[in-house]
């Protein structure tokens, strides 16, 4: 997603990243990754629940299919930290249209299950082509 940040901005999409972890952890992550978007702290996970972000089952979280993704991140230079938060909480993506309605809703199937960026942008492109 971050590799396409300029394109995302050109399409008129604002991005907010949410975490349920502590402020200290969030600040460290934003600093170390030089995150270009606001990192919101949802310690109670109320927004996670309201947006349908579920907790995964053990077989989903510890599935070896995801290990390769972590290795890929490390090869790309990402410094990974031991988890301090709830490792069973899954993330996901929600795209909200300009009138405040949900246009895309996706919950991860596992820890490293990230969608192709094009999938996230598709509703915006579709609307633009009809507009």
């Amino acid at each position, binding site marked *: *997603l971050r590799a396409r940040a300029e394109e*995302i901005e050109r399409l*008129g*999409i*604002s*991005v*907010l*990243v*949410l*975490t*349920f*972890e502590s*402020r200290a*952890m*969030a*600040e460290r*992550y*934003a600093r170390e990754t030089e995150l270009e*978007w*606001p*990192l*919101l*702290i*949802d310690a109670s996970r*109320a*927004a*996670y*629940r*309201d*947006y*349908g*972000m579920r907790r995964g089952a053990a077989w989903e979280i510890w599935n070896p299919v995801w290990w390769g993704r972590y290795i890929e991140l490390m090869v790309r230079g990402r410094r*990974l*930290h*031991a*988890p*301090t*938060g*709830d*490792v069973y*909480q*899954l*993330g*996901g*993506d*929600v*795209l*909200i*249209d*300009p009138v*405040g*309605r*949900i*246009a*895309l*809703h996706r919950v*991860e199937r596992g*820890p490293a299950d990230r969608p192709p960026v094009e999938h*996230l942008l598709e509703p*915006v492109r579709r609307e633009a082509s009809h507009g």
Partner: protein
Amino acid sequence: MTRPLIGAAAPHFELPDTRGRAHRPGDYRGRWLLLVFHRHLH
């Protein structure tokens, strides 16, 4: 919990970012808004 559905109004929240600034989905009305819910940070 009600799972948000495609086409439903986005649930409200007000959350601070790491700089202390509050954000609400309604602040972004008129633009597309992508919410990226992170797993634990690593």
